[in-house]
């Protein structure tokens, strides 16, 4: 290591963040259907998450409005029951396992690409960065779509339970719902990144020669 940095080995290798974003976005766009599968896994988990939690907010604010408190099993206790937490957590774990699995496939089928990038001078951390960016985009878009779907479904269910009153109460619960959607988006990204980190890190460590030996 005591190398006296011959003729400018000191020059930096870089990957500007804007370029990394562009490259990973392009990668996703071109493999659209492929990446939709990963995204769909996140979407379902988050849809469930948002539906359960906003369901709680909605029914809480419905039962506060005196008019219709008798009808259905609107939970007497506000807040989230232990059983619901358990369900949500389980669904999110299933979600992470799904992401990890599809990320493992996505990374494995791109070993050659990873090796090639390293031949062109990419540092290991660039490779990891690109995959984490890709997966966080997937996480975010899956979470956004999942939130919308989750919210629409719980609205339909509430409409059935409470009738049009649901719309009258809208201002009372929308902030709570939006807060959960915000959490869901962050959660979606974090879960996607967790799922991708392992495979991406391991693939990035491979010497290019090994990475490129993989024949498809």
């Amino acid at each position, binding site marked *: 290591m005591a190398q006296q940095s011959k003729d400018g080995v000191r020059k930096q290798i870089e990957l500007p963040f804007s370029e990394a974003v562009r490259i990973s976005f392009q990668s996703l766009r071109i493999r659209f259907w492929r990446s939709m599968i990963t995204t769909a896994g996140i979407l379902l988990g988050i849809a469930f998450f948002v539906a359960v939690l906003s369901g709680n907010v909605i029914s809480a604010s419905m039962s506060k409005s005196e008019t219709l408190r008798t009808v259905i099993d609107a939970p007497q206790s506000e807040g989230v029951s232990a059983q619901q937490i358990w369900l949500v957590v389980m669904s999110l774990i299933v979600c992470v396992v799904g992401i990890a699995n599809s990320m493992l496939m996505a990374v494995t089928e791109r070993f050659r690409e990873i090796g090639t990038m390293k031949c062109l001078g*990419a540092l290991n951390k660039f490779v990891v960065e690109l995959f984490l960016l890709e997966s966080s985009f997937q996480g975010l878009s899956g979470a956004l779509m999942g939130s919308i779907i989750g919210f629409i479904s719980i609205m339909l269910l509430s409409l059935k339970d409470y009738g049009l009153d649901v719309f009258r109460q809208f201002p009372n619960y929308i902030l709570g719902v939006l807060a959960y959607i915000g959490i869901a988006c962050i959660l979606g990204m974090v879960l996607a990144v967790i799922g991708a980190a392992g495979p991406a890190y391991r693939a990035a460590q491979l*010497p290019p020669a090994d990475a*490129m030996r993989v024949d498809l």
Partner: protein
Amino acid sequence: MSEKRVTVKAEGVIKEYRMGGTVLQALKGVDVSIEKGEYISIMGPSGSGKSTLFNMIGALDEPTSGVVYIDDVNLLELSPAEIAWIRCWKIGYIFQSFNLLPVMSALENVTLPMIFAGVPVSERRDKAMELLTKVGLGERADHKPTELSGGQQQRVAIARALANGPAIILADEPTGNLDLKTGRDIINLLKEMNEEEDVTIISATHDLKMLDVSDRVVYIRDGMVEQIKNRAELEIEIGSVEGEESGHL
């Protein structure tokens, strides 16, 4: 004759691959020394260790023992970041299977190494365009690899290899997936780069057409250097190549 400087040197390079209980020695102590501006072919039958040697010389893998020097720098003493720097600036790689990034256009493929090198946006676009034009693909800049023929993809790969003005181009069977004529075009293109830019070309091959343009040929067999022939010794054989060519490929 101008003074020659050694640019790549391998000393006692051994590479072993472990598979389960068995150890396969792909290189059994290789010494070669390659001068700046040379066009060197590494010839040998399939499985003789050409690609393994290519990987060792190109800093794509580490030898089990032995040392590789690039411009007197011992690769073993470099940090990962310095190795990346060498791959980015010093060496251009060309592969049998082209290895273009499939999601990127020809232009973007050529631009990528310049992004890593920190070349400003406008400059790298112009440079990439210039290189693509040079390899005869100026009009195909926006095409994806899948929209290009094998020969065209290999041209893009050559343009990409030249992006950061490397001192060395390493090519592993660059004509292996190409038909006879396209293969010859690629060989000529490499020769052109060799003569015009004084780029050292090191090419693993079993394509006899390469003999024509090589300054020296290193023959390897079973992981060992069998013999090294220089230009003068090669001249004698070239006549026979034409005859064998039809049987080749």
